[in-house]
Structure formats: structure tokens, C-alpha cells
């Protein structure tokens, strides 16, 4: 095999290797969904974020409109501050409600946005006033048991 044939095969090999990487990045990974679109950031305070993770989805009506950019703890109000990155092609009114929801029974947690009726739209750096925290199963069960116990007492009166 002469030199130019070797060059050809090495060229084919390198091209195939790069094509494999590209396949991994585009078809297997989420590079395609990592849009380079313009985004704006808004913040929301939650009393409890449950199992919400950075890079988790932000959905409205089931459509992914953004990602969770950052989760911080506020030392003054003892609440969690969640930064959301939302695609600029999606506009929401200023009185939008942010809820922490769970997909399925054991699925991942995400932020659901429910649009309000305000005429002014959210812009970069705004804070969502209306939020609803994650449902913690233990609190739910203890509340349920407490209610049951209270119900049981009344007929005995």
C-alpha cells in the first residue's frame, strides 16, 4: 500500500470518528434541544422545592418553554430562590403562577407556569409573585391522618 492510500484511509477514519462524535452529540445527546435562542431570566421564591434539579424543565401547558438555571437558598426569608431561563419566543404575563409539579407518580419534578391575566409581560430579572411549593409526601400524609383523627372525634360528641 503506498502513501496516498494510507492518507485516504486515515482521512476516512478521522471523518468516520468525527461523524460518530457528531452522531453522539446530535442524535444521542441533547445538543439539538440546547437551543442557542435568546432567553430571559426570571426568579421565583418557593417555601420548598422538593426534588427540583438544576437543568430541570420549565413547562407551560405541557410544553417545555425553558430550564431551571439555578437554585439558591435565601438567608433572610429561609426560602429557595429558583432562577428560570425562558426562551424569548414564549411570553408570559406578570402575574403568572409557578408551581412545582411531578411528572407521573415517581417522575422528575418540573416547574409548571400558569399564565395570569395581566397585560404587562414578564421581562429579564422579574420575580414571580405567585408560587406553589412542591408537595412533600410526609406533610401530606400527616395532614391526612390529622384530619382523619379530627373526623373520628366529632361523632363521639
Amino acid at each position, binding site marked *: 500500500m503506498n*502513501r496516498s492510500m*494510507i*492518507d485516504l*484511509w*486515515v482521512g*476516512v*477514519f*478521522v471523518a*468516520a*470518528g*468525527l461523524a*460518530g*462524535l457528531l*452522531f*453522539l*452529540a446530535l*442524535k*444521542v*445527546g*441533547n*445538543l*439539538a*434541544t*440546547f437551543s442557542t435562542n435568546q432567553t430571559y431570566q426570571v426568579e421565583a421564591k418557593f417555601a420548598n422545592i422538593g426534588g427540583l434539579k*438544576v*437543568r430541570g424543565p420549565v413547562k407551560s401547558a405541557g410544553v417545555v418553554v425553558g430550564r431551571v438555571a439555578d437554585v439558591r437558598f435565601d438567608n433572610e426569608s429561609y426560602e429557595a430562590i429558583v432562577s428560570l431561563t425562558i426562551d424569548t419566543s414564549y411570553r408570559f404575563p406578570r402575574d403568572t403562577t409557578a408551581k412545582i409539579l411531578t411528572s407521573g407518580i415517581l417522575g422528575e419534578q418540573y416547574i409548571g407556569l400558569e399564565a395570569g391575566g395581566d397585560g404587562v409581560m414578564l421581562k429579564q430579572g422579574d420575580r414571580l409573585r405567585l408560587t406553589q411549593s412542591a408537595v412533600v409526601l410526609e406533610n401530606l400524609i400527616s395532614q391526612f391522618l390529622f384530619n382523619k383523627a379530627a373526623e373520628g372525634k366529632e361523632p363521639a360528641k
Partner: protein
Amino acid sequence: MALAPIRSRLERLGATVTSFVWRLGYASRFLVYLALHSGTALRRFRLTIAQVYFAGVLSLVIILVSGLFVGMVLALQGYETLQRFGASESLGVLVALSLVRELGPVVAGLLFASRAGSAITAEIGLMKATEQISAMEMMAVDPIARVVAPRFWGGVISMPLLAALFSASGIFGGYLVGVQLIGVDAGAFWSQMQAAVDVREDILNGVIKSVVFGVAVTWIAVFEGYDAVPTAEGVSRATTRTVVTSSLAILALDFVLTALMFTGGNH
């Protein structure tokens, strides 16, 4: 004296440890010298391209076929387990994450060590045994710059590409078995995979792993070849040592890299 056999055994143990440390130091100095004298290999890039051909192109068949079968087995085994939990839709995630994060770099590295690493050691060792290395030194040609460096860079270039091809062909194998044979929904297979595999967290870290393995395997291979005792037996021992040492190095480095990469921000 009754203590004499114990003492000689202790001495032998000490000699083993000392010679290991000595070789490690020599190998490190060798790597630094190699990196400083890589000018020729990069300027006369043809030399390196020829080595990419031997280390990379000729390893393509074994890498692609092994990747395909590893992916197919992963899909079969994964489906068996996942369907018990009613999660057979996540088959794509399982196949892709295990290949991209672990199996791709590690198995491709092990195959690369036994396919290309052993060949590099045998070639350099044989050049030393037939006194070609000494002849080069006589002609004032630096054998490290002319012989060792192109092989080193050829291996370092080939390894990440081979690992990427291994993962890609494995995912294709998983698709063949999972979707075509078992009948998992193709849309769920790909979309769940795309939702779960992150380009920076998973794919880039896999590529970093394969680069590290490429450097480690090729470094061990060229060093063992250069350091081989210049006899038929010495070359055969050096070749065996290359495969054993680089396999162990890959597995140990894999643990360290995984601990560094995937335990920090992923929970």
C-alpha cells in the same frame, strides 16, 4: 541462621518495589522527553499519519464489531430487567448512558491496548533487538523523535475517535435489538435517550476519558517497547507487560475519572 530465607525474601520484595518506582520515574522522564521532542512528528505529519493508519484504521473492524455486539447484549439484558418495572421505554437511556459514560471508553481502550498497544511495543522492541535504534543514534537521528513520537501521537489521535465509533456502533446495535427485534417504540427509544444524555455531562466526559486512556495506553506501549530487553524473550515479555499494565491502568484511571466526573454535580 533461620532468618536468612526470610531476609532474602524481604530483600526481593524491596527490590521489586524499588525497581517499580525506578521504572515509574524513568517512564515519566521518558514522557517529558517525548513531549519535548515531538516537533519532528508534528512537522513531518506524514510519519504520524502512517501511525494513525496502523493504530486507528486497522483497529476499526474489531472496534465496530465489538461495539455492535456490546450494544446488542446491553439491549437484550437491559430489556429483561427494565420490563419487570414496566420501564422498557427507557431502554435507549440505559444503552446510551452506559456506552457513552463507561463502556465506550473502557472497552475501546482495552481493545486498543491489546490490538494496537501490543503491536507498538513489539515493533519498537524488535527495532531495538535488531539494533535499528542504535543505528539511528549512530546517524545522529534521535530515535525518540523519529520512531517513538509519531507512534505516540498516532495512538493519542486514534483512541478518542475509536471510542466514539465504539459508542455510536453500540447504540446502533442497541437500536437494532431494542427497536427492530424486541419492538420497543422507536420514538420513545430516541426521545428518552436525547432527554437523558447531556452533551457536556455525559458525552464530553466520555471523550475526556478516552483521551486520557489513549495517552496512558500509548505511553505504556512506547515505553515498554523502548525499555524492552533486546532479545526475543525480552520483546515478548515487554508485549505482555504492555497489555497487562495498560488494562490495569485503564480500569484504575476509569474509577478515578468516574469519581471525579459523575459524583460532583449529578445529584
